């Protein structure tokens, strides 16, 4: 087949669509694997845990996020579209009354920021926020 510019473009966009459909579940399961390591497979329900992140981040190199997890002893943050999904783990000590924290993270592309909180009674909570990233933050 002769590869014209038009055909090449069509092929490219087709491949991109296939990439989007094909690769997403794989990436998501990578994050799910890491989450399972934290929870030990236990069910994580929605609760008072919240993740605050901008809807659109122009620069994926520094995306401000904030977590608030009343009653949590530990909060782990994951980014399901990063090459390594783990972002950070916060352990709260006895002198931390609000169990909130804010930091800045790197996001490679548009994806979900997922927080898993371990509560004082050992149960888990889950919250997530989608961030649209214009310029990825993982370098070439």
């Amino acid at each position, binding site marked *: 087949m002769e590869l014209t510019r038009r055909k090449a473009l069509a092929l490219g966009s087709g491949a991109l669509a296939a990439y989007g459909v094909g690769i997403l579940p794989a990436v998501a399961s990578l994050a799910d694997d890491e989450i399972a390591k934290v929870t030990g497979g236990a069910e994580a329900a929605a609760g008072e845990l919240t993740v605050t992140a901008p809807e659109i981040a122009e620069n994926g190199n520094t995306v401000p996020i904030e977590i608030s997890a009343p009653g949590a002893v530990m909060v782990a943050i994951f980014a399901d579209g990063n090459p390594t999904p783990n972002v950070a783990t916060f352990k709260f000590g006895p*002198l931390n009354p609000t169990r909130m924290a804010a930091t800045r*993270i790197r996001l490679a592309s548009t994806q979900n920021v997922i927080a898993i909180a371990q509560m004082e009674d050992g149960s888990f909570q889950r919250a997530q926020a989608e961030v649209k990233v214009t310029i990825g933050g993982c370098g070439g």
Partner: protein
Amino acid sequence: MADNVKPRVRVPKSASAGETITIKTLISHTMESGQRKDKEGNLIPRSIINRFVVDFNGENVIDVTLEPAISTNPYFQFDATVPETGEFTFTWYDDDGSVYTESKSIDVA
């Protein structure tokens, strides 16, 4: 990459007993993720701060495990209860074994 690492911490100078205060910390560090490549296409090795701990008079406030997905110049904001006059100690642990510390005292009126 332990050059030019400078911790900055903001803690109120005084508080009333049992008050909740907000602490902001920043440390200048490249946080090289280990994903980037140099001009020749070689992977730049990972070099990050991997742990950040804050204590007040020996009691823990927050203990953070950092991964390469934390931005350059790691910034953290969090709250702490101040039961009495004392000192906050901030400790950052680098991949290369360096440990950076900073401390701030606070008066309880």
